[in-house]
């Protein structure tokens, strides 16, 4: 038996678009253990974001085969908010702007919604404020940004930092980071990585989707997967990311044929 408990288990997952006859995931097998960081790399359009959306419950996809469980529970039957309460968190590749909803209101509503779903008490205003300030400070998110509507007028990098702030506030069990490094300057990349690393512990798993080795210098993965055309075509250690960085995907793709 492996030491870490299986956090996320995806078996033979097939997903097509609901609206059209287009198969995107064609049999994904992937297991993330508690305490581990798994990275997924792969060419554009290979299905990485689709996988992250399907895990978090976005509409528009149809699972035609296979399963996905978190902590032994069937994810695919749950509403997005139930998955969130169970512990799934997706840091979006393209965080959504919500005009009219203040960032603080948003954070507080989310934190309390999850607490409520787990039968816990609401967080007090003072505790909440203290917590947000502390986490925001370490991500260099200033008070003014917290007051603004969610992601509205945020720069690309600010949006990504805001995703990590939400993650830090919600303390999920499985963190899915979809290209959180894109759009970040070198210093921000360090901040974000520190934020992620601070959350690493025995009870938490990570699925880090990225195109670049650089992020993985900061967030050291235990396992690296290569996804192509809707499948995991190769799994290895951190050295696999280095290989991709140097040689691209051509050899790996050829190998998988």
């Amino acid at each position: 038996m492996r030491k870490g408990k299986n956090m996320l288990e995806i078996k033979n997952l097939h997903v097509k678009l609901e609206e059209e006859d287009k198969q995107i995931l064609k049999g994904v097998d992937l297991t993330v253990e508690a305490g581990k960081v798994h990275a997924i790399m792969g060419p554009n359009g290979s299905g990485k974001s689709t996988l992250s959306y399907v895990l978090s419950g976005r509409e528009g996809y149809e699972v035609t085969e296979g399963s996905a469980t978190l902590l032994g529970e069937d994810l695919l039957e749950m509403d997005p908010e139930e998955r969130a309460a169970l512990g799934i968190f997706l840091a979006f590749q393209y965080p959504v702007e919500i005009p009219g909803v203040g960032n603080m209101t948003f954070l507080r509503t989310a934190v309390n919604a999850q607490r409520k779903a787990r039968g816990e008490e609401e967080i007090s205003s003072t505790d909440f404020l203290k917590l947000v300030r502390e986490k925001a400070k370490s991500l260099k998110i200033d008070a003014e940004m917290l007051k603004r509507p969610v992601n509205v007028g945020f720069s690309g990098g600010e949006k990504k930092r805001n995703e990590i702030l939400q993650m830090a506030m919600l303390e999920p069990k499985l963190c899915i980071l979809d290209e959180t490094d894109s759009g970040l300057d070198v210093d921000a990349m360090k901040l974000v990585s520190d934020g992620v690393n601070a959350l690493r512990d025995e009870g938490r798993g990570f699925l880090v989707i990225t195109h670049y080795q650089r992020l993985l210098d900061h967030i050291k993965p235990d396992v690296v997967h290569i996804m192509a055309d809707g499948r995991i075509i190769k799994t290895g250690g951190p050295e696999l990311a280095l290989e991709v960085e140097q040689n691209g995907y051509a050899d790996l793709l050829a190998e998988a044929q």
Partner: protein
Amino acid sequence: MSAILSRSIKTKPSAARTTATEARLGAMTAGATAGWSVTAREAALARVQSMGLPQPRDEYWRFTRPQSLVQAEAPAAALFDAGEAPVFDEIDRVKIVFIDGVFSAADSDPLELAGVTIERLAEATSDIHWAKDLYGVLEERGQDPVERPLAALNTWAATDGVLIRVSAKAEKPVNLIYRHESETSDAMLHHVIKLEEGAELTLLENGPAAARFNKVLEVDVADEARFHHVRTQGRDHERRAATHIFARLGRESLFKSFTLTANGVMTRNEAVIELLGDDAMAHVAGACMGDGREFHHDDTVFVTHDALNCESRQVFKKVLRNGATGVFQGKILVKEGAQKTDGYQISQSLLLDGDSTFLAKPELEIYADDVACSHGSTSGAIDEEAIFYLRSRGVDASTAQDLMTIAFLAEALDEIEDEALREALLERLTGWLERRRG
């Protein structure tokens, strides 16, 4: 020549219009037969007779059926107990209560407020009164270029209302509270407010007024005076209401009016604002929530710029579901010489299902060359991307929808300057949304 002709020719009342008008007038009497208001009332009656009451095919009533507001008999409306405290209960204010359109001294506070004189229209019967220069006068100004016969009808027949003269900064708001206790009441109220130079008043209105309600509010805002108006319409599910605000603004004055509407079956709120002094500012805004096929809400606004460097804003937002209908007719008229006008108008609806309807007619008419005016009207569904984003953070679907709904209405609510009032309305809004959760 032909242009002048076409302007001066009035459409003669059609036979159907005349019959409907006579039926209505026959069922009513003048609001007063002696005292200072008689001349204005008689003139108003003559206006009604020459214009005739609105008929279904009138251009200004293209989106709203005037029938139930015009007909001789008021359709009955069931009484409704909301089982919650009135919206402004937490606000320190002077309460003036009207039950089915009749002032109730027993339920009202003493009509006393420093720097303000408040009188009941029905009791202000002397031959000379300051209100003589305003009663029906602003209404009559507002009949050009678009006729508003229901307002003239009100000037003729209104029996009650308040006359408020403000000579200083009022230290607390005046709250007109309406109560509906008779299922068949057909009420008309006419309020006149005069703000003298530099004076300031906040007027609050809330509560169901009657089975059918016709209200006129005339507001004269002198130089450097400030008027804030916040009202709610709700709680009465079968409400039929036609309300008019006529306002005239002097130099460097401010006029702000906000209305929150829910429920009811037929509501037409007209606002007619004239900016006559330089550097004046007028904001008219509304948020409306409509649920069900019966619901019809119409905001009709006409803002005239006739001075230099004035600003006007019209911000109207409607949330419609289950087959509800929302209407917006808004116009900005910039007269010749009204340079540096800054006019803004936005009307938007959030359609929560494919069944609901939003009809909008935004208009600009500009006769000055150095102005900045913009208008926009949109109608759209809720942003599903944003809903998913919220749900992915653990927020349940109905809370997510409510958050988005409130966010959509925020630009209108932000027009309320006073934070306590804004909060009171937000609470009302949240409660309404919560009660409608599926």
